[in-house]
Each structure stands twice: as C-alpha cells, then as structure tokens.
C-alpha cells in the first residue's frame, strides 16, 4: 500500500469519527494522471451504468434516490448513505461498496438486479485500494434536506387551538347554538342558505340512529310528536344519551380506530376469547361519559397510572387498545422484523388514531411532508419498546394475592390429603399382611363354597374368622383368576384341588402353606424396614431390598391387583380411629376451601414494561441500527425547549404527553371524529391525517372553538353530542336545494344534512329491531353470528377449529357489535358492507354500493328470516290490512304511509295473492315485509 493511500484511508476514518467537526475534511491530493485515466476509463462508466440510476443527483430529481447514497460526486461517496460511508479508501475489505457488489451480505446486494461481472468488481476493488481517486468535485445538494421544526410550528395543526368569538351573521334568527354562527357565516360568505329544519319524525329517527344505531319505536316517535312542552327536544337527547345502547354505538366507532379484533391474523396464534373485555370496557366508558383524556390515559398506561384503585377492570381492560393489536410470526420468519412491525403498528394506531399524524411514515425515512424526522419515530416508539404482552388478571393486587393464597392452600391441602391417603392405604394393607395365613386359608374355603353354589353369609364368615371381608373377597378373586405370581403358585394348586374335591376342611397342606406364606411375608417386611432405614445411620445402614422380595410385596400388597391392596373408595371403611377421623377432617377442610374460593378476575392480554431507548433503524431495517434516538415524545408536539436527555420514555409519560392540554392535536382530532359521525364528514375530511397531506378544515375557527370547549368541559363527550344535536345545523333537513347544489354540491358547508347510508351494524340491527327479534343484551363474549343458512366451507370452520368461538346463538340475533371480529377469517358479509379492516386503524368507513350487496338483500337466508318475522309481527295485528300497513310503515320508516303508498301496497298484496302466491314459500305479506326492508328508505338516514 502506498503512503498516499494510507493517508487517504485515515482521512476518511477521521471524517467518519468526527463528522461534526469543521475543518477536518481533508481530501487526498488530486489524483495523478494514471489514476485519472483509470477512473475515467473504468470506474466512471461502471458507476454510471450500474449505480447512477438510484444514486445520483438525477435520481434525486426523479425521486428515485435509494438509501440516501450519492455516488456521482466524491463528497457523496465519502459521506455515504443511510448505511454509512460507502467506502474506506485503501481498504476494499472494509468498504460497504465492495461488500455489496460482492453479494456477501444477503441484505445488501448491489446492483439489486444482478451481480456485476467479476472483472467489473475487480475494477472497483482496485479503485478503492488505490485510495478511491476521484476528480468529481460537485457537491451534492439537498440530498438530505433537514426538517425545520420551528418553521413547522406555525402550521395550523401544530398551533394550540384558540377559542374564537362567534362571527356576525345576517340571518340572526337561524342560529340556536354558538356553532351555528360559524356555520352560517361560512354559508353566507359563499352565497349559500340553510334549507328548512327537519320534521320531528325525521329528527327523532336521525337522532336515534346517530346516538344508538337503532331506529326509534313508533311509541317513541309518537311521544315526541305529542310533547308540546318546551324542552321536548332536549328530553329526547337526554333519553338517548342515557341509554345503555349509546355506548354500543359510539364505542364501536372507537373500536374502528383501535383496530379491535377477537383473534390474530396468523394461524399459529389461537383467538383471544377475552378480547371482549376491552370492547365492553370501551362501551362502558362511553356510557359513563368517561373524560376523553382519562379514556386515553387508561388505554395507554392504565397499569402505570395511579387509581382508581377499587376497580381494576377499569384500570387494566383499556390496555387492550394496544395489547390486542396484531402480533406477527417470529421464528424462521425473523424475530427482529416481526417486533419492528409490531412496534410500527402500535405507533401507527396511536399516532393516526389519536394525534391525526402519520408518524409511522417516518419509520424508514424522514417524513416527506410533515415535521417528523425518523429519529422522532424511534423516540416515540421507545414507549412501546421492550414491552411484553402477558395475560393479565383484571383484578386488584389484593384480590390477586388472595386468589393466589387460596390456590396455594388448595394445592397444599390436596397434596396433604393425597399423602395421608397413600400412607393409610399402605399401612392398612400392611396390617392385614400379618394375617396372610388366615386369609389364605379362609379364602380357599370360601372359594370352594362359592364354586359349588353353597350358601354362605360372607359377612358372618369374615367376622367369625376375625378378618376383613374386603380383603377376603379380594383373595377369593385372586385365587379364582389364573395368574403366575410365584408366591401364590402353591396356594392356587391347593385351591384348585379343594374345589375339585369339594372339601371345605382346613387341610394340613393348607395350614402348612399358610404358615409358609406368613414366614416369607414377615421376612420380606422386615427386609423392607431394613431398606428404609435412614442412609446416615452408620450403625445400621439401610440394606437394599432384594428384587424377589420387592416382587413378592408387590404381588401381595402394592399393585392394584394385589389381594391386600386398598382401593381409594374403601379406605375410610377399613380405617380404625384415629386415622378415620383424621381422614374425615382433611376431607372436610378441603371441601370447605373449595366451596369458598377467592375468585380470580378474568385473564386478558395486558402490557408490561416498555420505555426502552432505541436506535434509529436504517431504512426501517431492525438489523441495521443507526444513530441513537433519545426517548421522548414527538418534538413537533413538545415545547421548543424540551431537553432530550432522558434515558427512558415510559408509557405513562406518553399518556401524559398525548393528553396534555398543550398538545395541539388530541382534542381537535377527537372533536373532528365526533363531528364526522354526526354529519358524515369531518370538519377536517381526513380524520386520521391533520398533516400536510390531509385536508385543511372547512371551518377552522369552529374546529378550534369546539376543541377548546371540549377540553374546558372536562373532555366530556356527551356534552359535545348535546352541543351538536341542539344546533340548528344538525337539525337541518336532508332535502336538496338546486341553488346551493350549484355552489356546494358536496355540502362541505353544511347547508343541509347530507343523507347517509346506514353502516352495516346499524342496518343489521335495524332489521332485527323492526322484525322484533333483536336481542338487546349488552356485553359479554363475542358470538359467531354467521348468518343462518350460509354454507361453511367444509373442514374449515375457523371458530370451531380453534374452539371457544362456537356459534352459541345460531339465530344470530345479538347486535352486530357482538359478532366475532376475525383478522384470520374476515366475515365476508361484514366486509361486503364496508366493515373496517381490523388489522389497521381505520378513521372512517368507505361506502360502496355494489350488486353483491343487493344479492344479499334480495336472496340471503338472513333477509328471508327477518322478513318472515316482520310479517308475522304485522299479521298479528287485528283489523284491516290498512292498519297493518300503517304499522309496517311506522316500524320500517318511522312515518305513516302516504295515500299512494297504501294503494300501491294493497295492489301488490292482491296481485301477489291472485297470481298463485301460494306456490312460493314466501307469502304475500312476507314479500311485502321483505320489500320494505330492502328499499332505499330503510337504508338511508333521513
């Protein structure tokens, strides 16, 4: 190596070690003529042909730059890209460029579309070895443009929301609420005018669907229409907000954001049968009007925040927001990548769902549009870095400890009882063993009598002989059976002879045999004692039991078949005092304990830990850690002077940062969501993106004022609903207006209520409700509500395969909220009707209108069933058809039929009946019921 190239190498090394020091950049001498010639003839053409496409200023211009690496200038080469400097001059072996063209590292192979020829690689190696002489002097500009956080703070979304005084309007009669002034002013500015107010029938239908996701009953409509007292509308709102069905409706919207599901998308993980505890927690939080900031804190760090100490379901179930998120396959599929992807999901759900920012776009590169450097992604992700997802008991620490103590007592007492029984079983048999001669003799006689069918009072016989009838019977059974135990061979022979000769006398042979048995038994027992002496008894060390003795004791005593074996059930009857009482005491004590359990809470996935600092993953690749990312919240949402020297960033700190009143986004984003579900469109029409790529608010001052009011109200969601429903804006009719249509066809400025299609939950629930078959039960485990009659693909009923999700209600009459939501086998019908994807946070529903949906409406067994039930309900009404039709319209549409509708319906019933309607399984009334449920008016909120 030449001195010059050594110098070069050192220079680059220095540059790398002290990148920030000005004046240390010392370039090598200008290349000499030979080097220049080599570079121009061999190196430059190669770089142009194979590298510039992705690594040059041209690539920057065409947005094709890869890996942040420029190879079209010397400084670009030296500065390197995301993975570090491209080369170490003079040292090909240490140069990334050389490694990548050699294809030695599977993760970094350049060019990506095929390895260079060996000669070409040799050229590059030679060039690096020469010290990478490079005449190209142009300095790359703007390859890595920085993000100016301070400048970004002036964007609307990053300024704190400010309350604005209601603007002046010309039509001062119209507004009813403060918000109406903002809306009307925007309308008047554009030459728009509000349409008329909706009718009471329309209002109560709209409000009931909006707040409960159900249609109003005819009685509720009538009551409202007849309520002429002031405050009638407020009473309707109060009644609806107090309904337990309110939380089912609004909780479900939150579950869209939380990408709630009852299982994982992978086949290697079983479903989470307790996921519903989080779903129910969300429903209850809405019903109780839990302050939104509290709602968020509990979901991010419920385990870390103090209190409420008395309710650990509240403390911990909310953690399902993240603990039920996707888990990915590890093992051969790559542990690091799976964990990095899980982390991205957590950051993504939190940032888009709560902050309206697409932070996870910065996982691989600085955010292209918003002020979120890659570093900030990893700073924020630290909150979830290192978390575990253990099954967590939803109970207080005291309750858990009590339960654990009870569990331990149960185990201990069960073990004690078992040990006592086992010792007594042996002792009882051992005692009887001493009388083996008597048992053998008596058993042979009893066997003879039995074989010859001679009467014998066995009870008396045993008592007379001074023996236990239980053992005696076992002895007879043993002798009766063929067997080859050596110890019993002679006795069996004798017994057979006695049976043959029908002799019940105690023969001398029998006596002799008894004595012999007894002596071997006594010897064996004393040998057993000798073998059980303590090992440390030096004077009398234990003597191992000879195998034949052990065998003998087994066949007479210790095995299940042995004559002196005591079966569990018989033990108590054979015991003498005090053992008998001891046994009973132990049993009673255990039974009492069992009857008085310290019950556990339910188990559900929770979170533990997190908060560990991360390094930036270069281009998102967890196998390439780069610069450290100081743990902490997004800098753009933190005060400008925030220090970034913390070692950790706990979830509690994250929760506090997210819910801080200084955070400009949290309240705005949520207020916008509530607005969206009431009007079908947010003030910001991109509820998950308040950044540059999102839409600007149509009514910025209104959004800010609502956000401030929301925080001032103690983050009360119900008061926000009230404010909106009491407004003249929300109460507008959904009628057309040709003049307004030409100015604002999309109704962005709210000159009317946009007609909205029911989402799939409200639609299905409404069908069941009108049919009179809806099961209004609230909460509980998720149910497989697969439409009755839908064919399962053979051999692949996911929920029966993975057990625990059996269809416990084949009729499927619970609210749609309670259906199993599967990531693994998405419910095709829910998907068809635009139910959101449960793998990724969802900010609003798409609304498609396609024929397959109508096939379901026209033909599905579910629709046939609800139509039949609806018809049955109508036909049970006494009187004329017209009365039934009146009820039908009120139930289905919340209004009476018009004259024309009555006439058309009567004609339809008649025509259907006349043309041999009996040939079709669906009766005329069932067809009519089906038609109402299949019609547009049923499908759209007025």
């Amino acid at each position, binding site marked *: 190596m030449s001195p010059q190239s050594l110098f070069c190498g050192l220079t680059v090394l220095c540059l790398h070690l002290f990148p920030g020091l000005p004046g240390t950049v010392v370039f090598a001498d200008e290349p000499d003529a030979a080097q220049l010639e080599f570079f121009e003839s061999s190196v430059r053409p190669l770089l142009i042909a194979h590298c510039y496409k992705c690594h040059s200023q041209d690539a920057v211009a065409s947005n094709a730059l890869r890996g942040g690496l420029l190879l079209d200038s010397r400084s670009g080469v030296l500065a390197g890209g995301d993975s570090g400097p491209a080369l170490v001059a003079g040292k090909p072996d240490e140069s990334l460029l050389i490694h990548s063209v050699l294809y030695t590292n599977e993760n970094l192979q350049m060019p990506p579309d095929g390895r260079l020829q060996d000669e070409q690689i040799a050229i590059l190696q030679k060039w690096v070895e020469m010290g990478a002489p490079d005449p190209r002097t142009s300095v790359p500009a703007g390859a890595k443009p920085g993000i100016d956080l301070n400048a970004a703070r002036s964007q609307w979304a990053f300024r704190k929301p400010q309350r604005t005084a209601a603007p002046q309007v010309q039509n001062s009669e119209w507004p009813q609420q403060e918000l109406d002034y903002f809306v009307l002013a925007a309308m008047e500015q554009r030459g728009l005018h509000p349409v008329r107010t909706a009718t009471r029938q329309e209002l109560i239908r709209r409000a009931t669907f909006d707040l409960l996701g159900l249609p109003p009953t005819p009685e509720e409509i009538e009551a409202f229409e007849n309520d002429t007292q002031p405050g009638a509308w407020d009473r309707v709102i109060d009644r609806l907000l107090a309904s337990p069905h309110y939380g089912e409706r609004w909780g479900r919207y939150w579950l869209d954001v939380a990408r709630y599901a009852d299982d994982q*998308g992978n086949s290697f993980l079983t479903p989470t049968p307790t996921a519903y505890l989080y779903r129910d927690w969300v429903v209850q939080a809405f019903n109780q009007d839990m302050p939104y900031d509290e709602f968020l804190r509990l979901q991010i760090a419920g385990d870390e925040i103090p209190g409420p100490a008395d309710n650990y379901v509240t403390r911990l179930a909310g953690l399902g927001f993240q603990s039920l998120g996707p888990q990915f396959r590890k093992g051969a599929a790559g542990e690091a990548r799976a964990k990095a992807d899980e982390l991205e999901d957590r950051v993504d759900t939190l940032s888009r769902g709560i902050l*309206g920012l697409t932070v996870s776009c910065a996982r691989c590169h600085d955010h292209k549009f918003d002020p979120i450097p890659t570093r900030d992604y990893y700073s924020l992700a630290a909150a979830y870095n290192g978390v575990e997802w253990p099954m967590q008991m939803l109970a207080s620490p005291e309750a858990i400890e009590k339960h654990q103590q009870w569990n331990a007592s149960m185990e201990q007492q069960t073990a004690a009882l078992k040990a006592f029984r086992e010792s007594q079983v042996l002792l009882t048999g051992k005692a009887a063993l001493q009388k083996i001669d008597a048992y053998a003799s008596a058993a042979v006689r009893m066997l003879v009598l039995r074989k010859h069918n001679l009467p014998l009072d066995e009870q008396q016989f045993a008592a007379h002989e001074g023996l236990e009838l239980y053992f005696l019977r076992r002895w007879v059974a043993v002798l009766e059976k063929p067997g080859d135990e050596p110890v019993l061979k002679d006795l069996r022979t004798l017994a057979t002879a006695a049976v043959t000769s029908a002799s019940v006398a105690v023969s001398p042979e029998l006596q002799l045999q008894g004595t012999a048995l007894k002596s071997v038994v006594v010897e064996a027992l004393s040998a057993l004692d000798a073998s059980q002496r303590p090992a440390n008894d030096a004077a009398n060390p234990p003597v191992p039991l000879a195998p034949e003795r052990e065998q003998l004791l087994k066949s007479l005593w210790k095995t299940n078949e042995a004559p002196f074996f005591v079966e569990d059930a018989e033990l108590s009857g054979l015991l003498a005092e005090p053992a008998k009482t001891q046994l009973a005491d132990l049993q009673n004590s255990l039974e009492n304990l069992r009857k008085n359990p310290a019950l556990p809470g339910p188990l559900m996935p929770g979170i533990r830990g997190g908060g560990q600092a991360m390094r930036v993953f270069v281009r998102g690749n967890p196998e390439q850690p780069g610069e450290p990312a100081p743990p902490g919240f997004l800098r753009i949402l933190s005060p400008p002077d925030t220090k970034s020297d913390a070692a950790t960033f706990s979830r509690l700190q994250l929760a506090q940062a997210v819910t801080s009143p200084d955070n400009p986004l949290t309240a705005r984003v949520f207020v916008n969501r509530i607005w969206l579900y009431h009007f079908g469109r947010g003030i910001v029409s991109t509820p998950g993106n308040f950044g540059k790529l999102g839409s600007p608010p149509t009514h910025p001052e209104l959004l800010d004022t609502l956000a401030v009011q929301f925080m001032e109200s103690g983050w009360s969601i119900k008061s926000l609903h009230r404010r909106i429903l009491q407004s003249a804006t929300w109460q507008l009719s959904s009628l057309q207006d040709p003049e307004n249509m030409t100015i604002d*066809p999309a109704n962005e400025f709210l000159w009317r209520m946009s007609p909205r*299609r029911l989402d799939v939950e409200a639609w299905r629930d409404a069908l069941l409700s009108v049919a009179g078959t809806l099961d209004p039960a609230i909460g509980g485990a998720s149910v497989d509500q697969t439409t009755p009659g839908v064919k399962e693909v053979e051999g692949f009923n996911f929920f029966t395969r993975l057990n625990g999700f059996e269809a416990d209600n084949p009729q499927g009459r619970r609210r749609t909220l309670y259906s199993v939501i599967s990531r693994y086998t998405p419910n095709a019908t829910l998907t068809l009707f635009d139910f959101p994807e449960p793998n990724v946070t969802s900010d609003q529903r798409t609304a498609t209108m396609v024929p397959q949906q109508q096939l379901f409406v026209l033909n599905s067994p579910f629709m*046939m069933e609800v139509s039949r039930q609806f018809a049955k309900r109508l036909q049970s009404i006494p009187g004329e058809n017209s009365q039934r039709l009146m009820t039908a319209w009120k139930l289905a549409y919340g209004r009476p039929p018009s004259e024309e509708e009555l006439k058309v319906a009567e004609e339809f019933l008649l025509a259907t009946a006349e043309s041999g309607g009996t040939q079709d399984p669906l009766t005329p009334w069932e067809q009519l019921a089906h038609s109402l449920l299949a019609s547009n008016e049923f499908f759209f909120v007025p």
Partner: protein
Amino acid sequence: MIFIRFASVIYRKKPVEQHVSGQNFFIRQAQQGTVLAQDSGPFDPPVSRRAALCRSFNGLGAIGLAAVLSKELLAAEATQSPPAANPLSSRVVHFPARAKRVIHLWMNGAPSQVDTFDPKPALQKFAGQRPETTKNLTTENATGGLMPSPFRFKRYGQSGLEISELFPEVARHADELCVIRSMHTDVPVHESSNWMMFTGSIQPNRPSWGSWLLYGLGTENENLPGFIVLGEQGQPVNGPSNWSSRFLPGIYQGSQVALPVKYQPRDVIPYLQNTQLSPITQRRELDFIQRLNAMHLERRGAENAMSARIQSLEMAFRMESSAADAFDLSQETEETLTTYGLTGAEADLVATSGDGGFRRMTFGRNCLLARRLVERGVRVVQIYCGKSQPWDHHSGNTESHRNHAMVVDRPIAALLGDLKQRGLLDETLVLWGGEFGRTPTSQGNDGRDHNHHGFTVWLAGGGVKGGMTWGATDDFGFMAVENRVHVHDLHATMLHLMGLDHEKLTYRYSGRDFRLTDVHGHVVQEIIA
C-alpha cells in the same frame, strides 16, 4: 344468455386527480347530487326498463351500466358526466395496458425449481456435497448435501427452452413461456411467503394484488365478481386472508369459489339464488321495491347514492342468471373437456400428499372455468391446487413431484392453448409458481426444504416475451444471483403489464397512502414484449 363483452378497456377522461387515489374518490362521488330522470318506472317490462336506463344515464352516472350500455354511449358519457360512483366500473390506466386479466396458477406448497424449469447439471457432479457458497444459506430446516434432480430436461420449441420431463404438455407451449429463474422472497415460511406472494407483505395486513388490480382497473363484467379464486373444498394455507381486500373497500375482495366435483352453477356465488321465490315472482317483488324507491326519491329529490342503489338492485337481479351461466360447464364440448383432461380414465387422476391432495377433475375444471371467466371479463382468477399445501415435499420429493405434475400438466397446457386459440392469450397474463422454491440440497433421504433464496415462476401471454428465461440462480439452483427478481419486482411488473404504475397506484386509508409494493419494486422491463 347473451354476454356483452367489451373488446377493449374503455378509456375514460381522466378523473381530476393525477392517479387513482383512495377514499376521496368515493366520498366525492357520494356527495355529488344529480337529478334522476323519473321515467324509469318500476313496473316497466325489462325492455323498456333498459331504454329508460339509457335515457336517464346522465342522471345516474355510469352506475352499473357497463353491462347494458353500448361502448359509444359510455364514451359519450365520458365527455359530459363526472366519473362514475361505481367502484367497479372500468377505469383509466396510467399507460396502455398489455394485459387486461390475470390467471394465477398457484402451486401451493412450492414446487422445486431444479426439478422443473431451472436445470442444474452441476448437481450431478457435486451430489451429496455442500459447496462453500451454499453453506450459509439457511432455510426452514437443516438440509444435507446437494441432491440432483432425477428428472431429465430437454429443449423445447423454437426457443429451445429447457423444461423437465415433468411438464411434457406445458413444454409444447415453451415459446410462450417467460421463465423467471431468479425469483427470491424474504423468509422460508409458508404463511409469510404466501402473504408476500399475494399481498406484498409478510404480515397478514395488506390487500391482495387481485384487490389492487380490481381497485385500479375496475372490471369488464359487472355481472360477475371481478376477482375470483377457484379451488376445491378445503382451504389452502392462510385461507381467505390471501385474497382479502383488507383496507380496500370490500367489493375488491377475492370471491372464493371452492367447488366439489359436482355442483350446481346457481349455487356458486353466495346468495345468487333466491330459494323462496320463483324468478317471475321475484321480478314482481323487485318491481314493487323499485316503486317504493321511486316514490321515495320523488318525495325527497334525487340523490346520487340512492339512484345508485336502484341500479345496483337491477344488476343483482341480472347477475342471478348470468353468473350461473359462467359456471355451467355443460355448455362445453366433449372435445374441450378431453383437451383439459377431464374425460376417460385421466379424469380420475389424483395428486396425493400427506398435507392434502387434489384431483385432476377439480384442478382441470378450474382451469377451464378460468378460461370461461376471463372470457367474460373477470379481471383476476387465481387457482390453488388443493387444500393446505400439496406441493410441500419435505420427503418423497421425486414421487410426489411426478405425481403432482402429472395432474396439473395437461390442464395448464390446455388452458394456454385454449386462450391462444380464442385470441385471449395476448391480453391475459398467466402466472405459474409457488410461494417460494425448494432447496437443491436434500432434507432427509429424498425431500427438499423451503427455499426463499431462489426460485422459479413463469409468465405467459399478456405482453411478456415468450420462449425466454430471465435471471439465474447459482450453479446449484440455490440462490438467485443474476438479474434477481424479488416478489415486489414481480408485482411491479405485473401491474405495469396491466397498465398501472406501481408507484402511483395508491390508496389513502386513514390518512396514510398505501401501495402494493410499499417502498419497493422495480419493473423488469427486459421481459416485456
């Protein structure tokens, strides 16, 4: 039954946005109110209904009209009316499409490249050895030395493409095949690699490419689902998540049609049949429903979304007869059935494997159905071999490969020939392959393990060059080394052939833009004819 099929994609005036962009599309449409002509009376007989639809199409947008309106009318509509609210209507493409439809023949379980389309004579020489360059290539299981292929390769066609004896029938179409021998993917795990092949991500959370195509291009026949997955009973690994639309609208999900040997065409698509009403009664009932809808609209003024639903109901009614027709194989001649290997003793061939097997009857029939479906304008047809992963030959590779190839060879060849004969192959892209390949080294005595480092797929028709190979694996067929093609690149290329720029086909979901290829993917220009 008459099918109205368009000979070419209808190029509409470009929508406002530069590229096909996400959710805003629907929102924009839903909010566009136009005036509905009131003359489409629900009691009109079908013929006058059609006339009424034609008269009122301006007010309706192009909702569901593709199936009844002539090309000229639609072209006229394009100049005066905003783009359709219907997410399935044919849409503008980024550049002229080479292919209009795709048939994906998924050899689930993953066939071995060195036994099929990537001959490696060096395996003989180094049999049983583990050369240095292959030592650090780990796969799912530990494997031993190199195991030569027991199958002979021959050159076929003008091009002299080398194909093993396993595929004598497919080999007759050698000059149509573009064999990519340098495929690679991320991990040697079936589940993850299936998702990669189908969705471009190893995690189960992205839409299938079939859904992306449908979203990007719409369909040419709205009387059938635009993305159909054909199989037999039982699910392949991952099941429906392979063809889920995920966060794309549900209408873009793949419709799985898993049929036993014998089936009723009317039962094929969910809810296609009304078991409670005769067609005549149902028509009368639908007329009543539409009458109610008309009175509703009259009362409150026209709404685009409501009019759309009125049309959608009509289209559903038409689907009842037309969709069943597509699946009715009794319309095919004996000769055709024989070509697909569906007659005589051959029809009884069964591919047996420990992890599930499949039959010639079902696989061959699915190939024939695929032709009927693309012929009717279905955008994407995917066929899997059978439940679980039949091609996963960790042991007994030789016998199982022979047996499996025998079942699929003739139907695949028949499909290629049939498409060609009908002039459909030029516009239909056929993709053959597994989710990864298999090791050239042995697992156990005679098995091959999963191999994500290198594998082979082939394309045919639809604008690719035939009779060529692209890229190469190392000397042993273990790792792709030359002109490497990642699955992302395959996806980018397929979209390109369909007229879509994979970097511009984005969908905004909850404020974030998603792409099939995420931040990856290069179009392999060299294989495009």
